[in-house]
């Protein structure tokens, strides 16, 4: 009975935050420009600073980003693309190329452990990955063919949507799936995993498989177009819509990125959008930061950091929108 007013309150709060993010980024365009200029001056974009400062700055920046991403429970790519494109002088083409490699490296590193523990399921991932990876190629070509300001505009809207999604989505630890649907049954989308905290063996199955698979068309296109990775979208679809337990949804989503981002990454690589001087320190910095972040999870206050990240996403999304509008 109280769920509806609560949901309405959250949605109103989310709408207010969206507006605030836009106003903040828009009204403070001067501040943002000053900030970017300060970063430029510091990092050498238009200064005489030596080239070798860049890898060091990116390594440090991405190291911190990696820690924050783990503590906030978001993927590295979703923070990397808006922040680096907003506050560093790299063109969006190269930021998206590096962003995909950042997300890909993280997913590849996490994949083996998740697969061995059955927290990522090949039965669940393979059909979904085929759709998402094929559409990611389309998305990558669309992203590279569209004018930069249009991509910036869409990126800004997407980032703000992600921030609101992070704020409002209520994932379910173990969704109740009464009856598996025909497609899920035919594809054998079910499995078991052991809950480490209790030792309980949990079996699961999916439902609403067709709408879930269709949504991966959109997810794949967005992953390829913006180079964001797509864990923010994978998890709610697998968990809330298709009924996979949260741990399996998170694990399978992470593994899924290693397939989806591979196809988009090849497109960016083949188009010359990967500059090793900036891409490699970003990948290594984010991976090192992720390892430290996992250790800090025990002592940090992830809730505060999660809200901070939502704020940062709103701001950087607003900034991308303003850049796209030429403001």
């Amino acid at each position: 009975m109280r769920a509806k007013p609560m949901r309405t309150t959250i949605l109103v709060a989310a709408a207010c935050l969206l507006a605030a993010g836009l106003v903040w980024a828009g009204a403070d365009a001067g501040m943002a420009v000053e900030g970017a200029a300060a970063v430029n001056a510091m990092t050498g974009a238009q200064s005489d600073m030596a080239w070798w400062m860049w890898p060091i700055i990116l390594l440090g920046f991405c190291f911190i980003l990696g820690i924050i991403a783990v503590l906030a429970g978001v993927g590295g790519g979703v923070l990397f693309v808006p922040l680096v494109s907003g506050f560093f002088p790299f063109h969006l083409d190269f930021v998206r190329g590096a962003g995909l490699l950042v997300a890909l490296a993280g997913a590849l590193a996490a994949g083996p452990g998740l697969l061995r523990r059955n927290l990522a399921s090949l039965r669940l991932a393979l059909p979904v990955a085929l759709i998402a990876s094929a559409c990611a190629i389309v998305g990558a070509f669309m992203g590279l063919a569209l004018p930069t300001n249009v991509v910036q505009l869409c990126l800004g809207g997407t980032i703000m949507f992600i921030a609101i999604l992070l704020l409002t989505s209520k994932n379910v630890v173990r969704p109740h799936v009464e009856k598996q649907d025909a497609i899920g049954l035919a594809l054998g989308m079910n499995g078991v995993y052991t809950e480490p905290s209790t030792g309980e063996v949990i079996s699961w199955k999916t439902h609403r498989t067709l709408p879930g698979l269709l949504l991966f068309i959109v997810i794949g296109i967005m992953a390829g177009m913006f180079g964001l990775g797509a864990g923010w979208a994978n998890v709610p679809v697998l968990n809330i819509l298709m009924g996979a337990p949260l741990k399996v949804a998170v694990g399978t989503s992470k593994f899924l990125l290693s397939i989806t981002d591979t196809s988009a990454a090849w497109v960016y690589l083949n188009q010359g959008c990967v500059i090793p001087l900036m891409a490699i320190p970003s990948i290594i910095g984010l991976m090192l930061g992720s390892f430290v972040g996992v250790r800090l999870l025990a002592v940090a206050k992830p809730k505060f950091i999660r809200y901070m990240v939502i704020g940062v996403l709103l701001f950087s999304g607003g900034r991308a929108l303003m850049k796209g509008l030429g403001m």
Partner: protein
Amino acid sequence: MNTAKYDKTPKEQILYASMLFYGCWGGLALMAITYLIYVFGVMDPHVSMETVTEVWSKPVHEYLTVGSVPVGWGWSTLLNKGDFLNFLGIALLAGMTLVCYIPLVIAYLKKKDPLFAAIAVAEILVLAFAASGIVGGGAH
């Protein structure tokens, strides 16, 4: 000792995980080594550091034009250059998923699961298409 907790994990999934583990960490190690070779100037780059930092704020076509950078698999002809040597590790990372899918096809055929074998074959084709660089030229 540890096998008990993996008992319910399908064999093909364990195989995929093992291949991914070695490929991923091998790729990352290779990436780190080639990057050090690049930035310490052990091998001359194809595009000078000064040029890279000048053009990375511009759209990709300017980088390609100013730096005479090849598209597609053209990088493989420039592996004697410090910057393009880095693509070995990147390509290994980006190629791992495709390689890991090949034994999956065999495993699913052995399990008499033609649907998943077909899905795995289709995924290999999708990834091979993306990697081939056949379609291109859309970059602005």
